[in-house]
């Protein structure tokens, strides 16, 4: 058991932190990047690719760098700290995982090199107006059409959906709206006839899109995974998403906590720094505990996301999301409160951290959603349930 990074992982972490430190050194820099046509900087995105970040989760055979969950953790934590806008999560973590886990060799060979080079951007189009967080709740249909498919439906809040070249779309090739079977994943070019994309800004400074699909024709080679059996791939993607969001949230919370400590030590009221007040000290400690509990769960996520037992893995990642969500809420709210008025302003970086933390809570499942999931699984401690005190 150890929590240390290898020398290579340390080097990666230092490299990403340096890059993010210069690309996102101030809120003004971030605002300028957000104001660009894509909502992020293509230059910085190219730097991500140059550094090899976009190739991390892909094997060397696939043209990537063969990194694992710990490497992703190091990168996402740094991106969180910088509130980076580039579509790393959408392209590498979401779309990339779908292609990596479900794609045929031919599809992987067609798509992954572009992701690694920074020339292909993906988005995951799964949420629908009725689905909330249920990945299996799919009304969008894909009918067989010759040797391909004809897609009809609509997807909502697709993160970075307005700057992606290709969309990973969940569509029903069989079954009823809430069946677990009959879902297929299809890779759809963003400029395919029948695809309409309405992009808009998000609360956390990023971009998302409403996407409608009307009689969109794709070939058989667009299929990711088996026809009708796309849900297991999608659920794996969601697990990687949760692990990545956990790391991002820890990066944000650590930065926000540090900002808040600095503020308490410098802000003068009643003739001294407000850090002298015990009631504020104790709230700062509550933030610290929430941060450290979240950090522990981000490590747990990195360990469990590759765990072989699917049921245990799913319960573990749900547990991670519950803890991360709770910590996001507590750290975010306390940071604003301890900052007072300045924490309420658009000009203050801390407020933007708070907004991103809040949005992370509702990405890939809120607290009640995942709490229910862990409960249905019977919890995390299976052996303790099976064993009585008397036996071994």
């Amino acid at each position, binding site marked *: *058991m*150890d*929590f*240390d*990074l290898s020398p290579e*992982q340390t080097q990666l972490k230092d490299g990403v932190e340096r890059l993010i430190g210069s690309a996102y050194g101030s809120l003004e820099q971030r605002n300028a990047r957000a104001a660009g046509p894509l909502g992020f900087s293509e230059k910085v995105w190219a730097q991500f690719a140059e550094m090899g970040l976009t190739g991390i989760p892909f094997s060397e055979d696939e043209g990537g760098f063969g990194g694992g969950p*710990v490497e992703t953790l190091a990168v996402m934590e740094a991106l969180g700290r910088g509130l980076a806008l580039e579509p790393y999560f959408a392209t590498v973590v979401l779309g990339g995982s779908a292609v990596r886990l479900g794609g045929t060799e031919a599809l992987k060979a067609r798509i992954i090199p572009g992701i690694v080079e920074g020339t292909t951007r993906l988005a995951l189009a799964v949420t629908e107006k009725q689905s909330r967080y249920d990945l299996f709740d799919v009304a969008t249909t894909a009918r067989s059409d010759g040797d391909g498919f004809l897609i009809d439906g609509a997807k909502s809040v697709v993160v970075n959906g307005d700057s992606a070249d290709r969309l990973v779309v969940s569509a029903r090739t069989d079954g009823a709206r809430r069946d677990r079977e009959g879902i297929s994943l299809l890779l759809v070019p963003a400029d395919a006839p029948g695809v309409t994309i309405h992009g808009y800004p998000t609360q956390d400074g990023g971009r998302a899109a409403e996407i409608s699909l009307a009689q969109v024709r794709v070939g058989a080679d667009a299929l990711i995974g088996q026809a009708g059996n796309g849900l297991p791939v999608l659920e794996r993607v969601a697990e990687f998403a949760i692990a990545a969001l956990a790391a991002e949230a820890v990066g944000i919370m650590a930065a926000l906590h540090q900002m808040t*400590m600095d503020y*308490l*030590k410098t802000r003068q009221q009643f003739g001294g720094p407000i*850090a002298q007040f*015990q009631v*504020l*000290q*104790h709230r*700062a*400690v*509550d933030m*610290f*505990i929430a941060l*450290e*509990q*979240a950090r*522990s*769960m981000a*490590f*747990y996520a*990195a*360990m469990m996301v590759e765990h072989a037992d699917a049921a245990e893995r799913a319960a573990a990642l749900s*547990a991670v999301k*519950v*803890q991360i969500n709770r910590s996001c809420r507590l750290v975010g709210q306390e940071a604003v409160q301890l900052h007072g008025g300045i924490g309420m302003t658009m000009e203050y970086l801390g407020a933007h951290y708070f907004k991103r933390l809040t949005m992370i809570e509702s990405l890939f499942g809120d607290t*009640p959603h995942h*709490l*229910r999931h*862990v*409960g249905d699984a*019977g*919890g*995390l*401690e299976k052996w*303790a*349930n099976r064993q009585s*005190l*008397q*036996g*071994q």
Partner: protein
Amino acid sequence: MDLRFTPEETAFRDEVRGFFRTQVPAEIRAKVSEGRSLTREDYVTSQRILNARGYAVPHWPKEWGGQDWTPIQRYIFTEEMLLAAVPLPLQFNCYMVGPVIAAFGSQAQKEKHLARIANLDEWWCQGFSEPGAGSDLASLKTRAVRDGDHYIVNGQKTWTTLGQYADWIFCLVRTDPAAKKQAGISFILIDMTTPGITVRPIITLEGRHEVNEVFFDNVKVPVENLVGEENKGWDYAKFLLANERTGIARIGLSKERLARVKRLAKEMPAGEGMLWDERDFRDRVMNVEIELKALEITQMRVVAAQGRRGDNRPDPASSILKIKGSQLQQATTELLLEVAGPFALAAPVRTGELSNDWPFDYDWADAAAASYFNNRKVSIYGGSNEIQKNIIAKAVLGL
């Protein structure tokens, strides 16, 4: 980064797990699991079984019976002991006075006491808190005045846990009333049979006799019972309290109790089915289980950091373990109380005994409220959670 145990660590876990579950009597472990009181004999029996195997004081220096274990092995050992509901070796002996004597005591004190402390041949209790010195421990007033070869001790200690069984008490006493607070305090060992000592029980809210008041009226204590140097007692006390905090999260205990909550909830009728079938109840259980998992990893991080530093200095971050660990222990007793529901109303008829022959459908339920009441102490003792927050604010956050 690898959060799994090595094959050696797993083998060690299996070994201690097997030992605890086969060698420590099941009836003693059942009492611990149900949250009932142990008798003096229960403590002695259990600790002597551990000690015979070298398991009572593994964290002590090797020459006094300790084991050459890594911090990770020690962590595994304690967690397995709690998971098996084995009573921890008497804290006052093994985690408090023993390590202090081993680190700061005279050779004569070590030879006289350490082996007997480990085997519970001597039962020790703690004389720190006073009526006027709780969280502000350094304001203690019990005086020890030098008179030839003796100190004459006068004053009062309180919250003396299991003092009714004790052969010895280790005390913080004021030896220099002129010095400022912490500076004038000494650490002395007092034989409980010395004339002038009176022990008076305090019955805690759940009806048990667990703590006491101890009065000292011109008690003569030989000077060789001073530990270390005169007026340096505060340093030894800090060493002791830091030791105390390391294992205080009691994660294994909370896990064991949570498993019990689940088991009992699956057998407790509620509505059309069982209590476990109710989603909001399950959500409450899961909230606790998830935080417990996070704390377990936090604890592993603290342990791994100790291993990397190669020392056993407790991390200031271990205050987190005390705060969260105590909150979760309390949360599990609240859940148990909820499972017992209306049947929690029944008070235990015979404190400290199993009541299997009692004509009641839920023979465990009478201990649920007692355990809940009693566990309110865990956020108060060992430095209250508010004191722990003061420590983190200063030592970790620099506020």
